[in-house]
């Protein structure tokens, strides 16, 4: 070193900056005030560089011999000279990354990572869902059942229960699902049935009361068994959770507005998957019923009935005769479009058309018992 190089010395006692000239040898580092006073005399081996060159524009040197003091160095030549001494001082170097290439590399890696994670959040649930421990699925399903049916009366007449369970067992035997599927019937006039995680079905009594025959009930039950076979509820939960996590990670989770926008996207995505799942369950229901030789036209008659009921309701509600505005009958699921959990009912009706042949789903005696389940 020919010319003395300067640094700023902080004594750690008062907020004063002293401009000092620094001389570094392999043995020691000496800093001298302009008046010739030596303020720093540190063994080179004991000096620690506390700054990091990636983020901080200056090098900060400290030494345990003189706690609290620090030398701040911005002079690139001096930093290089110190780094050349090696050891822990190597970190004093002031290398600046070339921004454009580094930024490009990081951005590309980031895009790939986000893509991979989004793909995983979309596809992984299909693989993972069957392997979620049955106990967890079961307790999750139980809590859903409790939350949903706690204020409804349970229908537990043993003959009706027996008839329904026999039907489900036959369908389950024909499927790839290897655990018993439970069913509980609750009193509720709404026409509906659900499959919850852990292989449990909930049937509203409205479905049984409004059905014109055992085939319709069997069709809907087979559809729900299809949901169970494909673990649809578990897949939906996992996908929602995974998407939420990716979104939180990418946006840093700090902006509620961003979270709202992204959350809306997540809901739309989940609804699309839900519509696909309904189609898959319809398909599986038909396959299972064909496999056990059951009469399988119930599902499409049920859809026809659903459409009919919607039209009656709509004309009753709005005082508008069906077909007065448009020749096409109303279909709630089709009107809701991308906001619907189910595909258009008309499309499902067409896809599930079957000839009225095959063994009846329930004997006349079983059907009577099932209709009486809530009495």
């Amino acid at each position, binding site marked *: 070193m020919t010319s003395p190089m300067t640094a700023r010395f902080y004594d750690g006692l008062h*907020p004063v900056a002293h401009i000092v000239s620094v001389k570094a040898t392999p043995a020691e580092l000496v800093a001298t005030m302009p008046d010739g006073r030596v303020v720093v005399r540190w063994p080179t081996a004991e000096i620690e560089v506390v700054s990091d060159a990636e*983020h901080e524009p200056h090098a900060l040197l400290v030494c345990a011999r003189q706690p609290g003091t620090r030398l701040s160095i911005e002079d690139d030549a001096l930093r290089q000279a110190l780094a050349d001494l090696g050891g822990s001082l190597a970190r004093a170097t002031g290398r600046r990354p070339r921004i454009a290439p580094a930024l490009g590399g990081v951005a590309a890696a980031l895009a790939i990572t986000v893509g991979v994670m989004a793909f995983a959040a979309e596809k992984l649930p299909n693989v993972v869902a069957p392997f979620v421990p049955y106990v967890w699925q079961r307790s999750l399903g139980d809590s859903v059942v409790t939350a949903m049916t706690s204020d409804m009366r349970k229908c537990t007449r043993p003959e009706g229960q027996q008839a329904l369970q026999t039907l489900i067992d036959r369908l389950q035997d024909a499927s790839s699902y290897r655990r018993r599927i439970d069913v509980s019937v609750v009193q509720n006039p709404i026409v509906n049935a659900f499959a919850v995680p852990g292989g449990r079905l909930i049937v509203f009594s409205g479905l049984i009361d409004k059905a014109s025959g055992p085939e319709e009930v069997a069709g809907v039950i087979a559809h729900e068994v299809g949901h169970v076979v494909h673990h649809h509820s578990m897949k939906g939960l996992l996908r929602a959770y995974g998407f939420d*996590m990716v979104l939180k990670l*990418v*946006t840093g989770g*700090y902006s509620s507005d*961003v979270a709202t926008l992204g959350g809306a996207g997540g809901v739309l995505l989940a609804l699309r998957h839900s519509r696909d799942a309904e189609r898959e369950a319809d398909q599986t229901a038909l396959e299972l019923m064909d496999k056990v030789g059951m009469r399988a036209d119930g599902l499409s008659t049920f859809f026809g009935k659903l459409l009919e009921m919607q039209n009656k309701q709509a004309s009753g509600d709005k005082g508008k005769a069906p077909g007065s505005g448009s020749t096409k009958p109303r279909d709630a699921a089709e009107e809701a479009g991308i906001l619907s959990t189910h595909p258009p009912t008309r499309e499902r009706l067409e896809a599930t058309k079957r000839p009225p042949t095959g063994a009846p789903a329930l004997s006349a005696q079983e059907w009577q018992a099932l209709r009486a389940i809530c009495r």
Partner: protein
Amino acid sequence: MNDDSASGADKRPDSVTGSSAPAAAPQWLTPAPAEPGQGPAVPPVPRDHGGYAHSQGFSRNYVPPAGHAPPPGYPPPAGATQPYAQLGYAAPGGYAAAPPGYPPYGAPVAYAPPPIHVNPPVRLTYDGKLGELYLVYLRSLLLTLVTLGVYRFWGRTRVRRYLWSHFQAFGDRFEYRGRGIELFLGFLAGVGFLMVVGGIVLGALWLFARETVLQEVDAGDAATWLLLLAGYPLLAVGRYAGLRYKLTRTRWRGIRSGLDGSAWKFGGISVGLGLLNAMSAQLVTPILDVALAKYRLKNLTFGTVRFGFAGQAGDIYGRFIGFYFLNIMAWIVLVVIIVMIIGGLSAVIDRFGGWEAIGDKIAHPTPLVIVIMILVALAVYSLIGLVILPLRCWYQAYLLRYLISRTWFGRMQFVSGVTTGQMWGFIVLNWIILVFTFGIGWPWVLHRTARLIADQLWIYGEVDALAVAQALGQGPAIGEGLLDLFDTGIV
């Protein structure tokens, strides 16, 4: 003003650049000569009215306004020795004569002013570059994704290290010496704290109110309500604790900063006044704003010395009341505008077949419908941004100028000239950037904020170095636990 160029080069006339800064030449008590055509570089002159009211202690370091004529003969020409006359003091009651060695009371005395040197006001310097900040941020984001979120504490530490170290005051850089592991442990401690508190409360409910309360509500609902009820106060507590952590990890000229006071007390003030404000239709907002700023600023320390603050809500009530009623009027105007637009559009809506047909189009969107929906949302947002938010910024900028002008540190005084327009750029534009980039614009927002601080915070006077000594201890061992649970900001 706050331009967004990536270059960190500081072209301001008063910028302090490293070691090449001229040895701060003492100046006499006159304002620095303003260069013509340098709009924002002219320091905002403290005024005694209109929001720049002086705090106590200011007179010790008073810089007269530019148009203010100095007293005759002052400052004395360089090298002048002639003293000038000062009227003598009247005798205090009970004293017959002056103390021995002093001129008699009432006699004119020869008086030369003590050598008070006032430096021209200076600003902070920020020399960070947007590209570098993006590199730091995106790399942290990448590692955060790969580690499923665990890395974010280390990433946040890196961003802070970059920002802090690119700020300079009087030629010396700030230092951030926090560590990622401290934030991580703080996060774990916060989670543990919430679990213990929630467990105790739920356990107590189970023991004593099983028959009454828990019969009615679900345990999960109870936990959610508990979190909401406790969350609001704990958020304020966490903010204060997080501020303390950040300040204790901040050094300048080797001296550590800090924050005294109790986070719980701050939470109490925040919740108490917040409730009062909500019950009084937001009419005590200035009291809340000043009280929160006061508790923080009076407890803010650098080394062994505390900052001072002498603001009073009464000083800013006039502006607030103006804002309050103009705001109500603006909302009325906005509603009228929207009603008129919808009325004007009703013909168009009818042509498309009424609201039902439009609802159907929204449910089955074609690309054109999506574009139209985005445009409508943008129009509503820009109406709010143009009518409502400028008023809020008008008040916020005034509040910020007031709070800063009432703050001092030793003989140092702070003034901000932040304008309503800059506040709008800060609040509204930053929000727009964040929303439209899905969070990837965050470094840009940070960069803009850092430049605004560097542009609009003026420091009068200097640190009295010998009056300030190093702070004792190291501050809290772990950081920001509760804060991270509620507010996962990057800085």
